[in-house]
């Protein structure tokens, strides 16, 4: 039926889903711990929204994203279940099947953190610049659904698997800049 295509199209707008569609989660670090500073720039606003938090990934507990300032917010996901703790303490459960981009985000981050270029190359033009300490990786989405929403993703590493900064620029003019703290720790694994 034609309406199925409409629905398909609707999902194209969930741009990052194409990455999720890559299917296999890349070889992931066994663990990653870091504090971060997130700077969100919204189109039409001169002052960015700055927040602070921590990111924790491990094979047992999955993915935990916690904002500690200016308010408290937690996002947890273990592949099958996902939930949010809102600033007012409300717990909101999310259905990963209904929200594939959640897994997409996890996928991008894990790919980036694990330095899995092969997987990312399926969907991005990967441009690597060597730095005195580490590398700068520019991911430009290949033509397709991702390119409709994301302009580029820049990952700066101090060493393979040790990201220092992740910047996502979207096509609306907004951007998300995440700087990981110096105490970040990555343990490699399968």
């Amino acid at each position, binding site marked *: *039926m*034609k*309406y*199925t*295509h*409409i*629905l*398909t*199209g*609707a*999902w*194209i*707008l*969930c*741009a*990052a*889903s*194409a990455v*999720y*569609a*890559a*299917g*296999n989660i890349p070889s992931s670090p066994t663990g990653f711990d870091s504090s971060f500073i*997130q700077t*969100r720039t*919204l*189109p039409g*606003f001169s*002052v960015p*929204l700055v*927040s602070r938090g921590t990111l924790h990934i491990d094979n047992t507990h999955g993915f935990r994203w916690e*904002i500690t*300032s*200016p*308010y408290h*917010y937690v*996002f947890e996901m273990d592949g099958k279940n996902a939930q*949010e703790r*809102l*600033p*007012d303490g*409300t717990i*909101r459960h999310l259905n990963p*099947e*209904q*929200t*594939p*981009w*959640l897994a997409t*985000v*996890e996928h991008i981050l894990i790919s980036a953190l694990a330095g899995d270029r092969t997987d990312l190359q*399926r969907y991005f033009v990967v441009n690597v610049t060597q730095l005195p300490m580490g590398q700068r990786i520019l991911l430009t989405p290949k*033509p*397709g*659904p991702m390119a409709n*929403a994301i302009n580029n993703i820049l990952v700066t590493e101090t060493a393979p698997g040790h990201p220092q900064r992740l910047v*996502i620029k*979207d096509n*609306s003019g907004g951007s*998300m800049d995440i700087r990981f703290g110096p105490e970040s720790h990555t343990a490699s694994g399968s």
Partner: protein
Amino acid sequence: MHLPAAARWTIWLASLGVLCGFAWTRLDVQHPINTDILSLLPGERESPVIAAATERSRDAFARQLLVLVSGKDTPQTRSAASAAQGALLAAGLQMDDSGRELGRLLNTYQTHHFALLNAAQTARLDKGGVNAFATDVAASMASPAAMVNVFESDPGGYLSRFISELPRPYPDFLPDGPYLTAVRDHQRYYLVNMELRGSAFAEQGATLAAHAVHDAQAAAHKVCAGCKFQATGASLFTNAARDDAQHEIQWLTIVSTLLIMTLIAFVFRSLAPHVLAALQLVASILAASAAVIAWFGSIQILTLVFGTTLLGIAIDYAFLYFAEYWFGDSAPQSVMRVVRPGLFMGLLTGVVAFAFLSLAGFPALNQIAVFSVAGLLEAGLVVVLIFPVTLTRPPHVAVHPAAVWPQRFIKLACRPHRWRYLLPALALLLAIPGWLRLHTSDDVRDLQHFPQQLIQNDHQIHDTLGQIPPPGYFLIEASDLEQALGREETLFARLRQTLPDATLLGLSRFLPPVRQQRASLSAWKRIFASPLALNRAFAHLGLPVELAMRIESDWRAAAHQPLTAQSLFDAASDLNTFVIPAGSNETLLASVYSRADINPAALRQAAAAVSGVSFVAPLTRITDTFHRIRVRASWLVVIGYLLISALLVWRYGRREALRMLYPPLLALGVTLGALGWLNVPVNIFVLVALILILGLGRDYTVFLREGGAHLQSSALAVTLSALTTLCSFGLLALSQIPALHAFGLATLVGILASYLSAPLSLPTTHGGLA
């Protein structure tokens, strides 16, 4: 009847012409042949809603062509999918213009996003006010899932969630350009979803689809030789079934025609029987079709198939005449007088038997009754009017020894020998275990034959896609759209409890009820009632106050109206598929998809629990229709046979009539036993074969009885009838198509049994018959 030849031809042609002319004035030119099997069900005609919904559901399913290209290397597989898609487009298939419709649809949702809060979100904002809203905005900003700001004016993420909750076509497949894609068992799959322009069941559409798939496969393999290519769709099944049927019918027709022509030529050594038999056949089919059209306006495809088959009985009348003319003792002018009793009695019993089918109350059986009665009468008319004026000179054909074999067989069988009683008893004894093993089937799927590869592909594709076609659909009826949407939501809520993994498809998934939309708008109205409070709530969480001001400005600029069905359909006309036009009432079509087969009972139960909702399973309805036709027709045949028995008692007396009724019933018993032994189910095709067997068996006994002193010609007529029936219908037992195979097998066994048992209708003689 001493009419001159010209008068006879004139009467015959004029009667046929008047009938055809009248039929022409009654013909439904748009649909001369009705192929809708569901219209065979009497209730179906009273429910245009079900007919419209079924047609809509069937069209959507039937036009779809799914192609799955898979391989280990993603770029190569994607290129192969792209090449396949190019070939499919070049062959004339189409892809949807979903891009533009999607843009319009999302713009529409964007325009009305303040009306699209769900009940839980509305309750949260109602309860928590500006603080709850500010919290949602903060969460949306903080969430890693909101890193990509797709909807600029959706800071709370409400519209994103609304979009994300729309039903997804294939749960595990996600978009990649124009395709859907997923990974399964280390293989990358690309789905190319195409649509046929025309009907999948028409020859043109099915052939086009098959050629397009062939081209697409070649194109895909050219790009990626190692990629796997699979395709499925109703059109491919239609094409395969048609190819199979055509191939089989072609060779069976050629073989049977050659056999029959050889037989007639061998016996009569003349062209005349060929010409006259063909004339009788064409005239009877023409008259039968005209009578049906004159009565009903159009003709059912099943009537044509079954009716034409049943008209095979009519050839008996021709053989009766030919046998007496060529090999009887009568002069050409006396042939009609000699065969008339047998001919009229055969005709009378045949007409009575078929007329009884019209009492079934089913359109299909009514049509078959009219078709058969008209066809038999026309066949008789041709014999009575035309044969005597075309076969006027004494034939100069030497009697071949084979022509007297039937008479010898009859005489042999009429000797008062113990085998005359033992053999039938033995046959019946052997048949009894078969009767106990006999079973019925009215499932249309059991009547068809498709290539194994096609079936395998279909299963694999649907397994991979995680979407098994549902067994039916829901109809939600209400006095207005709002009530219908509410009922659909109630139904879906029930289904979510019983089938948590299923995908529910219906208009309410795209268009919230107006009451919910009004509640959503009211919640927002309260949020923006105090801009200062909103600003404070944003500031309290460290969110930019400018953001609150911009959202409030968006609210002021927005039309505070619910999204209407019309606006939705203007944006995405295909969503109108869910609405079935049904007079003053509103009727919605809804469905449910799952990764595994869904038990229709669960769906029926869910529908029964909600007022105005019904579950319709088209396949089950067809099966039920066939079942009811089969059962009712069986009873009518029994009643018709009893009536014929009364006629025979009236004509021949009780003792002789009982003897004449015994062979056809014996043949019927043996046939059913054989079907049981061979594990062939009794279906509607077998029933038609049984009616044919009873009709021919009855003709054999009547012809032999009426033959009397002219045993040689009547025995020859019966033998020729049996042999030609075996050559034409019996050969169908070799068919791979289950429906034809069952019909052919029943006919083969039944006609053999009818012929071999026909002499039992005659009394025993010590020295043989005269």
